[in-house]
């Protein structure tokens, strides 16, 4: 394949999903400049890997590369946010997965949740542990299916489901607290 063919394939396979890649990187990285660096670097990695890509899901493929690139950069930056669940001991892990919030007493309306403002929501999402945040973002903001998310994050679908449930639960609890 000559370089021109590679560029064409890049335009057809990768370019349609650059906005997805950027949105995902923004949620993973917090910092705007870092997110752009991640997308740029992910594009270079994707370009190199193009000859090995045979489809069918280019978006999930690109997002996997974005995730790996982001985590590499985060590791380099020794980001505290990236403590793997496996590195936690059993009771910490339980806390992380179950949350240690006491369910707010009373019954706040779902309407309160629906009225949440974007800045507070964004802060709440950003405060989620990375493993929960990526699953929530991929599902509820980027609209991917469970099995696609499982592929991107390299986890079983069951894990995706439990993390998604926990992530949403944490957000709901936090929004109820804020509205009290």
């Amino acid at each position, binding site marked *: 394949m000559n370089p021109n063919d590679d560029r064409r394939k890049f*335009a057809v396979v990768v370019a349609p999903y650059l*906005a997805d890649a*950027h949105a995902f990187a923004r949620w993973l990285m917090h910092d705007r400049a870092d997110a*752009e660096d991640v997308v740029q670097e992910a594009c270079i990695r994707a370009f190199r890997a193009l000859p090995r890509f045979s489809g069918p899901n280019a978006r999930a493929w690109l997002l996997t590369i974005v995730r790996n690139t982001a985590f590499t950069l985060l590791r380099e930056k020794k980001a505290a946010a990236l403590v793997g669940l496996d590195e936690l001991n059993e009771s910490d892990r339980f806390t992380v997965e179950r949350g240690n919030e006491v369910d707010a007493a009373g019954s706040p309306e779902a309407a309160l949740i629906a*009225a949440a403002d974007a800045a507070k*929501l964004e802060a709440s999402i950003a405060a989620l542990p990375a493993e929960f945040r990526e699953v929530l973002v991929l599902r509820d903001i980027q609209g991917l299916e469970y099995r696609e998310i499982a592929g991107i994050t390299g986890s079983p679908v069951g894990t995706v489901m439990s993390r998604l449930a926990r992530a*949403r*639960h944490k957000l709901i609890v936090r929004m109820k607290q804020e509205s009290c």
Partner: protein
Amino acid sequence: MPLSDDHDVHLIHAYLDGELDVMAALAVERKIAADPDLRKLADEIAALKKVLAEKFPPEPIPPRLRSRIEATFALETRQRMPNWAKIAASILVVAALSSTLTGIALRTTAPQEIVVAELFDAHLRSLMAAQPTDVASSDQHRVKPWFNGRITQSPRVVDLAAQGFELIGGRVDVVGRTPLSTLVYRRREHVISLTELSGRDQLDLPFDWRAENGFNMIRWSDRERSYVAISDLNVNELETFAKVFRGSAS
């Protein structure tokens, strides 16, 4: 969460995410109806999903980052473009950056859909190339003989300049392993790819159109041949194109 076991809770999430089959979904609906706690949970999750989707709609990639990436990957192809191709390229960049990928999305479906998907890809590729034709000519008597020896059929070539569709040339698109003739027309700054199918790839649809990622596609069949026209032209004008092509004498 003191509600019920994790399994039920996960199923409610999956139900609201449209991940369950019909039977499982019905079972979840029954559970929700029977249990006020589950009902409340489902309402809250649904409200959260809704607010997330509303507050964080898809955003375009920042122009600065897009330029940076284009500079990395597309610089050399851009410098050698003739003038008119820049117009096509701008259309393409919009299409490529804002759309999902038709071809790949369609590839899991029927063989005819694969043909159409490949033709979409061919149309996109042609817009990206220095020129969308392998033979550039507005003369139907030059374009038609050019296909001799390149494909097995002699395609129908007509000049529709009088009707506002200028013939600018032709090219061979390979779909599956079959080379097919594609005529390229232009209306204003819009490029139209018209591919002729016959034999095995013959479509059984009399007439049909659809829109994909800002491109319109019309396909129709005559007695022996089928045609697929793809363009970013609006659907009314593309339909007009199809009509005058069908009605013209070669």
